[in-house]
């Protein structure tokens, strides 16, 4: 096996890694914002908004990402909207992630008891304040692990964007393979990079979860304090 042929292409590989990280970062950020907006819309606006959001979520969750990507890349130009591979990838990933994240955040929101919201309103908090402090923040803290694994899955699914000629990590792999004819070595190297990326992302999201939601509840705070005392 000759890994040096593959490893000598490290500037290309590095660029691919960068693009994979950038794509995932943009899609995760935009997708999360969109999902939060859809969750808020679902609970604040009338039932029609709920139906629209539900239909969107079901549609995205029950069709392959590749079909969504091709619909945007090949289908939209027919309607006069022309996007390049990178734009189409970002749009498809964002829309896809938003649907899954909406479903996950909804589960978190459903776990907030009615009495919490009533208590917030009784303290003269506005509708928005209740939504932010009483509903969304605790809901996010509860579903953060589920969201994290969805983010990792999205990062791995970004490999599919190579089908619309985006030179992210797996697109780069295809080019290196054609240049060097070292298929096995190329895919081993790229797979190991994906593995490292996924594990790092998992660790980073864990750390971020602890930073963003330091204490989940008063009870957790209490047990932690006692733990320190002992």
């Amino acid at each position: 096996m000759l890994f040096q042929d593959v490893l000598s292409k490290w500037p290309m590989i590095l660029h691919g890694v960068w693009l994979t990280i950038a794509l995932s970062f943009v899609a995760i950020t935009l997708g999360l914002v969109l999902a939060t907006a859809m969750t808020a819309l679902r609970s604040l606006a009338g039932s029609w908004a709920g139906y629209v959001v539900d239909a969107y979520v079901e549609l995205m969750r029950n069709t392959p990402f590749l079909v969504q990507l091709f619909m945007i890349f090949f289908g939209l130009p027919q309607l006069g909207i022309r996007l390049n591979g990178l734009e189409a990838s970002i749009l498809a990933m964002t829309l896809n992630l938003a649907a899954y994240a909406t479903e996950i955040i909804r589960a978190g929101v459903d776990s907030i008891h009615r009495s919490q919201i009533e208590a917030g309103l009784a303290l003269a908090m506005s509708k928005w304040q209740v939504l932010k402090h009483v509903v969304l923040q605790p809901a996010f803290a509860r579903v953060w692990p589920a969201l994290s694994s969805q983010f990792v899955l999205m990062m791995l699914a970004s490999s599919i964007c190579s089908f619309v000629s985006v030179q992210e990590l797996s697109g780069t792999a295809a080019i290196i393979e054609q240049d060097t004819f070292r298929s096995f070595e190329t895919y081993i190297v790229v797979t190991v990079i994906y593995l490292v990326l996924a594990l790092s992302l998992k660790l980073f999201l864990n750390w971020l979860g602890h930073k963003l939601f330091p204490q989940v509840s008063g009870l957790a705070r209490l047990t932690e304090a006692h733990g320190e005392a002992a």
Partner: protein
Amino acid sequence: MQTFGWPEALFIFRSAGWTLALTAIAFFIGSILGGAFAIMRLSRVRWLRRFASGYILVIQSIPVLMVLFMSYYGLSALGIELPPFLAASASLSIYVSAYLAEIWRGSIESVPRQQWEASASLAHTTAQTYRYVILPQAVRISLPPTVGFLVQLVKNTSIVQVVGFVDLMRAGMLVNNATYQAFQIFTLVGAIYFAICFPLSRLSRHLEKVMNASRSH
């Protein structure tokens, strides 16, 4: 230039059969492997446990696409030529095995510990404990997430078109290359995937409700 009409639509419909066949094969082989890994993951032998969790972690942390590329292009570079259908089934089975192993491990672990103790007190062997006490209960618990995962599998079969296997996705692409009516074609392709996945999603949710009802007693 060809236009998108009934013959093309029929071709796409027929290729959906290959998507279903691939799903069935990957699910069948994947569940045998996955079951083995789930039990290894819970074994009392430390290296078996380590090996199974390492396998699950690695497969869950790499794209299915890389598994597919390795079993198709990678192996052929080493002189082992797998036909597209075999490479696709093999890589999807590997993917399925890692996810099912994790789902089923969770299900087995959620059977109360007292059940193990009760079985041991009846002088059951480990195999008998699994067969008569643990698995019948674990299977019930695992049903909703397993059906839910089946939806992921159906959707993920769409990537095997890259090795030239004509499944539903590939059929759509071939027709698109001939007619350039991508919007109509991928609407149809998406609708067929939806028609397969949506009932499964609903079934999964329904099973979850039924199971929860029986557990709350």
